[in-house]
């Protein structure tokens, strides 16, 4: 197994591109960056590398153990890498979709969304608590098919590197053919938006075709200003609060909830409550559509993960 980490090698490039985008912001869009927000996002990135070092080894060991039971012998060839990259991206799509539709997963992934800015430093705003979710389980089919865990790790690294450059407002649109197939700054701005029309859309990592295939694609509308972040903005730059707030929220909600509803606060979509006192993204979108006087099929009807829009 090669000892090769593409993300580690990419770090100087990340720093250089953040620097270039900052200069662009200074010239054209001073509010695209904010020092405290930047510091928080980058501290998230640094902390996530430490968390990754601690938990990554354990996951690799688990994958190597399970790889013994593989169905096929997949060689270390270029075509195997290409296939692994595509399948890993498909697994990423579903991990990411669960990350938004199941509060247990969201508690970890919310870290990436809690900035009200959308710039290259936001890309580095990575979770510290991913190991507390079951995201790794989505990669198990690849291991059991016979892809070596090292190959999967390398593909996942390149996937993460690809996703870095799309976190920018400096690029409006890529060529049409590229927008049709690949995830782009435009598609991913939609994903980070809290505008009701954009909530829980565009989960893609590298290939936007998964969203088109599974009914979660939404195109960016040019004349609507995007606001970024989360539905209830943090209002704080406290790093530890930013890291753990949703986990604390889940614990508090489960503690206070009646017995029959406790698990709902872990397994249902973010915003779900047993008494309807908060709003899910589906509810926010439905109310917005009502105000617009439009009718549209809510995303939950296309979503087999957490379909209900009404509180149980």
């Amino acid at each position: 197994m090669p000892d090769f980490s593409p993300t580690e090698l990419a770090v100087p490039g990340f720093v250089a591109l953040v620097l270039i985008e900052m200069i662009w912001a200074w010239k054209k869009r001073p509010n695209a960056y904010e020092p405290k927000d930047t510091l928080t996002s980058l501290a998230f990135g640094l902390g996530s590398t430490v968390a990754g070092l601690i938990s990554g080894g354990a996951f690799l060991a688990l994958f190597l153990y399970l790889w013994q039971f593989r169905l096929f012998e997949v060689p270390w060839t270029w075509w195997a890498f290409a296939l692994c990259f595509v399948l890993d991206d498909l697994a990423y799509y579903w991990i990411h979709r669960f990350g938004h539709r199941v509060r247990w997963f969201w508690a970890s992934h919310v870290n990436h969304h809690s900035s009200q800015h959308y710039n290259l430093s936001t890309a580095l705003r990575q979770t510290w608590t991913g190991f507390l979710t079951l995201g790794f389980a989505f990669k198990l089919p690849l291991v059991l098919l016979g892809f070596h865990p090292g190959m999967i790790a390398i593909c996942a690294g390149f996937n993460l590197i690809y996703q870095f450059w799309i976190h920018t407002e400096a690029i409006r649109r890529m060529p049409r053919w590229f927008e049709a197939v690949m995830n782009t700054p435009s598609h991913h701005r939609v994903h980070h938006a809290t505008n009701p029309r954009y909530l829980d859309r565009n989960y893609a990592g590298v290939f936007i075709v998964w969203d088109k295939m599974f009914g979660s694609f939404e195109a960016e509308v040019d004349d609507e200003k995007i606001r970024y972040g989360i539905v209830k903005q943090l209002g704080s730059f406290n790093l530890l609060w930013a890291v753990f707030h949703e986990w604390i929220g889940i614990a508090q909600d489960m503690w206070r909830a009646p017995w029959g509803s406790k698990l709902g606060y872990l397994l249902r979509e973010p915003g779900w409550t047993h008494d309807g006192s908060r709003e899910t993204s589906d509810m926010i979108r439905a109310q917005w559509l009502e105000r617009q006087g439009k009718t549209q099929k809510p995303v939950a009807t296309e979503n087999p993960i957490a379909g209900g829009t009404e509180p149980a």
Partner: protein
Amino acid sequence: MQSLPPPLLQFLGSLVAILALAALAWWLKLGPEPRLADREAALRAADEAVSGFDAVDCAIDRDGHGALLRDRGGRILLLRPHGSHFAGRILTPAASIRLADDVLVIDTAEKRYGTARLRLENASAWMQAIESIG
């Protein structure tokens, strides 16, 4: 430095780069504090904070550093700057308010969101409205 293990060296290098980038953002004066220029801006920011918040009453801080808005249902929304954007909260019965000179000090009772200090035209009426929440 040669005796440091590579992961620690990498961590320290990244930390230096992070601090340098944040310092550069500060030095370039990126992220100016937001201002609410008029009622339109306050209504827009309110809708961004709470989708569909339909304000019937609005008071903007004299310097534009925040606002209080009330909707038809009597909900009161506080907007205060957070970095170069606004962050809003619907005030609950746990919120407290006091008048210090001509500044309204509003505590949302949410520790990390903290307090907001607003200079409003009709401060005593808003104070009364907030005190009667619940």
